[in-house]
């Protein structure tokens, strides 16, 4: 029964959502509404699972004094500090008059969000700017016609979407034919066509995969026994 009950749940819920698209009335509409609310609550527990799993792994690293355990300790402390501010400010705001949110400007949680979380998350992703330039210099080569097409399109878009494109071309080309116009055309014609082909292909594949999952033919999401 370890696999049969989940497969039955997948089937029932999948059929409800599929049919509710066409029959929004009772019972399918009511079930869709109920299941939609449940999805959010279960999602919250899924996030909690991730956070608690991280803590479990970090605690194991610290207690068993693995080579990088100081960093695991930093993870645990940072997590606890953030959670402390979140719950302290949250309950303080809940019982205050007037009530305020745990993330209102001026709270400890908002301070942590602004000066720690935002700074770190933004900088982590910002590093990619350097790597994309380095990778372009080292590896981006027009080895054949297709790669050349890719390169030329990238040049037109990169230069056309910033003022330098028009600065370079508007003294030699008429209005409407400058680099920004070419970038507009590339985005609205060949890019639209290519993206649409990919979109339709993905949609058709997704429909068949979803059907297989709902009918229980695809069970990889259940994992091993």
């Amino acid at each position, binding site marked *: 029964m370890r696999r049969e009950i989940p497969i039955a749940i997948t089937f029932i819920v999948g059929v409800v959502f599929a049919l509710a698209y066409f029959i929004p009335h009772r019972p399918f509409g009511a079930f869709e509404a109920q299941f939609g*609310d449940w999805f959010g609550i279960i999602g919250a527990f899924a996030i909690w699972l991730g956070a608690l*799993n991280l803590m479990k792994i970090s605690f194991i690293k610290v207690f068993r004094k693995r080579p990088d355990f100081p960093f695991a300790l930093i993870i645990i402390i940072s997590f606890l500090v*953030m959670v402390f501010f979140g719950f302290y400010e949250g309950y303080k705001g809940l019982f205050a008059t007037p009530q305020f949110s745990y993330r209102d400007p001026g709270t400890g949680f908002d301070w942590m969000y602004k000066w720690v979380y935002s700074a770190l998350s933004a900088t982590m992703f910002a590093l990619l700017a350097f790597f994309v330039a380095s990778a372009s210099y080292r590896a981006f080569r027009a080895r054949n016609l297709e790669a050349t097409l890719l390169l030329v399109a990238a040049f037109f878009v990169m230069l056309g979407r910033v003022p330098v494109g028009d600065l370079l071309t508007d003294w030699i080309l008429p209005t409407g034919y400058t680099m920004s116009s070419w970038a507009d055309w590339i*985005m609205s*014609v060949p890019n639209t066509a290519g993206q*649409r082909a990919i979109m*339709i292909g*993905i949609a058709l594949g997704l429909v068949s995969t979803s059907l297989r999952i709902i009918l229980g033919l695809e069970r990889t999401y259940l994992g091993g026994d």
Partner: protein
Amino acid sequence: METFGIWLAALLTIGIISFLYKDNVLYKACEAIFVGVSAGYWFVTYYWDNLYRKFYLGINDTSNPERYFLWIAFFLGVLMLTRLFEKIGWLSRWPLAFVVGATAGLYMMIYFVSNAFVQVGATIKPPPGFGTWQSYITYGLIALGTFCGLVYFFFSKEHKGAFGVAAKLGIWFLMVTFGASFGYTVMSRMSLMLGRLDFLFGTWLGMIK
């Protein structure tokens, strides 16, 4: 506190950027802080915005006669947490099955309608303003590119003859698409770094007007 916050954010930003020179202890420490703080942020946010606002306030909303069904969602959510324990971890398959089933059922419909049906319709229906020679070329190219791109993705038939020519044309359209995506990706990545450099040189050092 704001001054202290600015200096702390600057130190953390420089710690992450130091990775560009080479991996170092400061970067590893900043990375660990990021992981811990992110997990804490999501933990707290989902508690207040979902478990409190949606579940707790939901079951106490006397105007809703169906509110007690939310306890089923809570029960399934608790089962999700059993994944932390090896012996009873198999119980987490039930809420997982719910999530997968709901997503599969909904996506099957919305992706077919919005990403296939409407897109095919938009490709073949004449849009407003259709009638000039420029619109014939524009929409003709869009239709041709979409069709040839789809032909390229059809791998059940060998790409030979007229089919092969269409597939080749499809690849060319797709290459232009990927080039445009690359150009936009460069723009996006540079924008991310600009934000941080504006913080360092503007907010922290005050050098920018």
